[in-house]
Each structure stands twice: as structure tokens, then as C-alpha cells.
């Protein structure tokens, strides 16, 4: 007990030395806290995104190949990914899950749009596609198994303001802009139809009647005419000119990409399509976050090395004074282990206070510093939230890719961070006491006193 009491008294009796130690402790703990919080939180987000991006498979037309082929042969048409191929690929054992989507360019002559409606059919041909007779589209119909998975809703670019997402094939959600133009409300119905008159087999396409189940709001009013529904009718050749089911595939293990690729081509996927994971998004999303984590880790290393060096120097400078104290205590009969314990207790008591203050200051500083670093990273990458969302949408035809822009990282002090800081604190306590402990353990008291005197 007297050891604890003496250690406590010593803190105040050697205030000058202990204030210096406390300042170093506090600086190291505060800066380490900031660095650890940033590193841990960025690591966590990077891992989360890495898992998602490296497991999501993108099947994209190889436009270069298609264009080359089209230049050689104007009759060339890109082989479609038929629903059968999609279903076969979906049956692959390498997949964790598959999300389906479909889309249709449509007209709806009974309703009012911002623009006057052009009702004439025109003939047009897109690269790699057949010459088609079709109307100018006024409406994009996007279909999903679950509409709430649509990128627009996942990224919160669009938000459901009234009603609910479609549960039946004939239900749809429309924008508040379109609802306002047509005085639509929940439960009202309207008709829409594929821009083509006939399907690929020459059968006349039927119009679709939709009942409004929900109304959404979207900041970007250029896309006000997009409506969201279930996939069912968009992949039905009675309604759709080209009833293609788009699949978004998620691998169970990112390492299985090559195996899945082989299986996909074997299932009938044309070589004019590439199968890959999301490298661009990976670089756009994860690289800056990983760089932040690296910066934080390097900073932590520098702080620890500098702090440790300064503490060691302080300890060496204070050793003359401490040597005398150790000599006197040993001369009085205090055991070596008790002296070491007293030294450790002294440092530990100072550290407990510094740790508490450092954790508070560090966790308060961590958020603004994280925000500043993230803003700096995004600025240096030339990207903001909108760009990252564009990256997402360009891949999967509107299906949410499960990753939205990282414009904010919560710099939260986690239990694991506190434990790491506890470890650092322990290391610093040991370091601050190491020189004195060495003298206490190594030499006879008379030698210590003789050296001092």
C-alpha cells in the first residue's frame, strides 16, 4: 500500500519531470487515437466495399470488339444474352446470389409529358443492332425483382414520398413531377407501351396498364419520366420488343471469377461480352480510402517512434535524479521489485489521466480530421458523390450495385481502438520506466549512491 501512496506522492513531488512525461503521453495518445480511429474506420469501410465490389460480377458488351465487327460487316448484330443464358449462368455454383432487372423504352400517348409528343415512327439502327422501326421514347420503364434495390433508391437519389414499392406486375411508382403533370394520385392507372410496334417475331405488342402504387421524388428532374415496376412484363414478349432479363451476379468468393467466367461462356454467353469485377469502382472507391488508412498507419508509426524516442531521452535525462532516489530507497531496504513497481505505478497513474483526456480529445478531433482527409482525397481524385454514383449506374443498367459514394466516414472510437490504445499506453508506461528500472534491478545500492555522490 505504501508503494501506491509513495508513487502517488512522487507524481506531485517531482512535478517538473512528470509534467513533461504527461505532455508526451498526452500528445502520443491523442495523436495515436486520431490515427487509430481513422485507420480502423477506413479499413472497415474498405473491407466492406472490397467484399462487395470484388464479388459483384459485371457482364458488359465489349464495345470495341462489337464496333470492329460492325465496321467489317454492317449486318452484324450483337448476340443477345437470352433469358435462358441468364438463367443458366444464375445456376452456377460459384454464385452467392443473383439480382434481376429489365428495362424498356416506352411511350404513353394518353399522358402528358413536359415535351410535345412525336407520334411518327422512324427507322433507326444502333451499332450492333438490327434496323428498327420505332417511336421516339418518352418514358423509361425500369423493372426489378424488388424495386427498392434500384440504384436510384439505394443511393437515395430518388426517394419514395407516397405509397409503396410495387408488389404486383401491374403496379408502378412514378415521379412526383409526372404525377403533377397528369394530376395522378395513388391508385390511378395509365397505359404505356414499348416504342416498337411489333416484337422480334413480328407479333404486335400489347400496351401495359399500370396502377400507381407509389410516388417518388428525384432531384434530377431530367429523369422525371422514369417509372419503376416489377420485371415480369418487361421480359414478356407480348409486351417487350426485346425481352431481356439482366442479371447481376454476386460471387460467393472473389477468387471464383475465372471459374464463373468459364461457366458463363459455356452457358452460351457470347465472346462479345466481358465478365469482370468492378475494377474502376474499386479504384474509385477503395483506393482513396486505403490511402487514408495507409496515411493514418504511417502517421501512427511516426508518432509512436517519435514519442518513444522522446520518452526514452527524457527517461535518460531523468535517470541521474532517479538513480539517487533508487539508491536511497534500496539503502532503506526497499526491494528491487517494489522499486520497479513504484516506478511503473507512477507512470501508470500519469498515463491513466492522459489516456482518459487523450481519448476524449482524440475522438473529438478524429471526425473533423477524417472529413478533411476524405475531402482532400476526393478532391485530388477529381470525384464527388455524383461521379461515384455515375460509375455505379453505368455498369448494371440501373440495378443498385450495393455501393454508393463514400462521402462520409464515421470516425467512431471502437472498443478495438481503445484496446489498441491501451496497448500503446502500456508500452509507453514501460518505456518511461525502463531506464530507472534497469538501474534498480542491475546495481547494488552503494554503487548507485556512489556514482551519484
Amino acid at each position: 500500500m505504501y508503494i501506491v501512496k509513495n508513487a502517488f506522492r512522487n507524481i506531485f513531488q517531482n512535478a517538473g519531470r512528470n509534467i513533461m512525461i504527461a505532455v508526451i503521453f498526452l500528445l502520443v495518445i491523442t495523436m495515436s487515437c486520431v490515427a487509430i480511429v481513422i485507420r480502423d474506420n477506413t479499413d472497415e469501410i474498405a473491407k466492406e466495399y472490397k467484399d462487395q465490389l470484388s464479388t459483384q460480377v459485371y457482364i458488359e458488351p465489349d464495345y470495341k470488339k462489337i464496333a470492329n465487327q460492325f465496321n467489317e460487316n454492317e449486318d452484324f448484330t450483337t448476340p443477345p444474352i437470352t433469358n435462358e443464358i441468364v438463367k443458366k449462368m444464375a445456376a452456377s455454383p460459384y454464385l452467392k446470389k443473383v439480382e434481376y432487372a429489365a428495362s424498356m423504352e416506352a411511350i404513353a400517348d394518353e399522358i402528358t409529358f413536359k415535351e410535345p409528343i412525336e407520334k411518327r415512327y422512324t427507322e433507326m439502327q444502333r451499332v450492333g443492332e438490327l434496323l428498327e422501326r420505332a417511336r421516339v421514347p418518352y418514358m423509361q420503364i425500369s423493372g426489378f425483382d424488388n424495386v427498392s434495390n434500384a440504384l436510384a433508391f439505394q443511393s437515395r437519389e430518388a426517394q419514395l414520398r407516397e405509397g409503396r414499392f410495387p408488389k404486383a406486375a401491374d403496379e408502378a411508382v412514378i415521379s412526383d413531377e409526372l404525377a403533377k403533370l397528369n394530376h395522378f394520385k395513388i391508385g390511378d392507372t395509365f397505359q404505356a407501351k414499348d416504342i416498337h410496334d411489333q416484337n422480334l417475331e413480328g407479333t404486335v405488342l400489347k400496351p401495359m396498364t399500370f396502377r400507381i402504387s407509389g410516388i417518388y421524388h428525384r432531384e434530377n428532374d431530367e429523369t422525371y419520366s422514369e417509372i419503376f415496376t416489377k420485371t415480369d412484363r418487361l421480359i414478356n414478349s407480348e409486351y417487350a420488343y426485346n425481352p431481356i432479363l439482366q442479371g447481376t451476379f454476386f460471387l460467393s468468393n472473389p477468387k471464383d471469377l475465372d471459374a464463373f467466367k468459364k461457366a458463363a461462356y459455356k452457358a452460351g454467353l457470347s465472346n462479345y461480352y466481358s465478365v469482370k469485377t468492378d475494377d474502376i469502382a474499386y479504384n474509385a472507391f477503395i483506393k482513396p480510402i486505403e490511402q487514408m488508412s495507409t496515411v493514418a498507419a504511417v502517421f501512427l508509426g511516426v508518432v509512436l517512434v517519435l514519442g518513444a524516442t522522446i520518452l526514452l531521452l527524457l527517461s535518460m535525462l531523468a535517470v541521474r535524479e532517479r538513480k539517487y532516489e533508487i539508491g536511497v530507497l534500496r539503502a532503506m531496504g526497499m526491494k528491487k521489485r517494489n522499486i520497479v513497481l513504484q516506478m511503473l505505478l507512477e507512470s501508470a497513474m500519469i498515463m491513466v489521466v492522459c489516456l482518459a483526456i487523450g481519448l476524449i480529445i482524440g475522438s473529438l478531433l478524429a471526425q473533423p480530421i477524417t472529413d478533411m482527409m476524405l475531402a482532400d482525397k476526393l478532391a485530388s481524385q477529381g470525384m464527388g458523390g455524383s461521379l461515384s454514383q455515375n460509375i455505379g449506374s453505368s455498369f448494371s443498367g440501373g440495378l443498385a450495385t450495393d455501393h454508393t459514394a463514400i462521402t462520409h466516414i464515421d470516425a467512431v472510437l471502437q472498443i478495438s481502438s481503445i484496446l489498441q490504445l491501451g496497448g500503446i499506453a502500456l508500452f509507453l508506461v514501460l518505456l518511461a520506466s525502463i531506464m530507472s528500472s534497469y538501474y534498480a534491478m542491475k546495481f547494488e545500492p552503494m554503487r548507485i549512491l556512489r556514482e551519484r555522490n
Partner: protein
Amino acid sequence: MSLLSVKNVSYRYENTKRRALKNINIDFEAGKVYCIIGKSGSGKTTLLSLLSGLDVSSEGSILYENNDLGKADRDDYRAHKIGVIFQGYNLLLNKSAYENIELSMAISKSKHTHDRQYILQLLQSVGIDEKTAFRKVLKLSGGEQQRIGIARALSHDPNILLADEPSGNLDQETEAEIIKILVDLAHNQNKCVIIVTHSKKVTKYADEIWGMSSGNLVYAG
């Protein structure tokens, strides 16, 4: 019956060829005052540091109640059996006189450790008043520090008292008082008191006087 025996002890400081102590033999008994006299550098303080268990001899052995100090727990020996009055005081300078005594008593697990009156009386007996007792040692004079050193040596009621020039910084009146205390401890409380001194006044009270010269110890009366 000897309390402390020195058997064929020699000592050589690290990295030196010369022996500071040469084949020393002496027995110390309880109830006696011993004076060791000699010139500076004769080896008096070295012998004192070996007797007090602050250092270990390179040759020979020192026995306390027939137990070899080289093999015994010397921390325990210093904490309980022996009290040392250092020439250089060796006090904890950032602590008060009271705290120095209290800490020494805590280390030796004295029953009076938390007895404020006992500690103050002890300090009073060597001429340290209550006000001075609570001032930092650093701010006290050499004489006052010497007195505190004496009080600390007595604080845990040891069987042996070793004193290196105990009256060196004291005025004549206090010197007489301190000598009286030490002689009283030996003669009336059966303690063994070993004093290293230059003072002729002190040697007058000694039961045995030993002289040291170039590391050799000889009986002088």
C-alpha cells in the same frame, strides 16, 4: 557473542587493481560502541557499506547472527536489522523530513508507520521541530538534514547502527546530544553502534577503537 562478524574480507572496486580492504577480521557485539578511525581513502566507508549490506565483498564473508550476508536477503537486513547514518545524508530531497521517516518505517513494516506522534517525537529527539518536519528536505540546512538522517536510522529500531561521521555537520551542543543518544542505545538498549569518525570527542565514548590504514584494520584501543 558477536552480532556481526567480518571474516577475511577483502574488497576491490571494479576496474581497479588496488584492494580497498585487505583481509579484514573483526567481531561486533551488542551493547558496545565501536569507533573506526582513519584518514580519507583508508577504506572506512567501504567497510561501512559492506557492514550495512549496501555492497558485497569480493572475498571473505560478513555474518549477521552467523548468517552470511552474501547469501542472505540484504534488503531485509537493511530494512530491519540495521540503521545507517550516511555522511552524505542520502535523504529523499523532494520529500519532507516526516515523509522520509514514514517511508523508511513503511519499508521496514514498523508498527509505528502511521503513528504521527511517534514520528514527530523521533524527529524532536534529534532537534527537528514540527514545522521543520513538514518542509521539503531540499530546503533544509546540512545540519538539519544530518539530524533527519539520524532519526531515519533510528526509526525502525534496528539492532545495529552504522554511522559515517554522524556529527560532522552538527553544532557542539547537538553533537553531544546525538552521541549521548547513540551511547545510550548501545549501553542501555543493547544495540551495536559502529561509528566511523574523525572526531576525538566521539572516540572518547567508544568501547573499542579500530584504526584503518590502506585497507588494513588494526585494533587501537
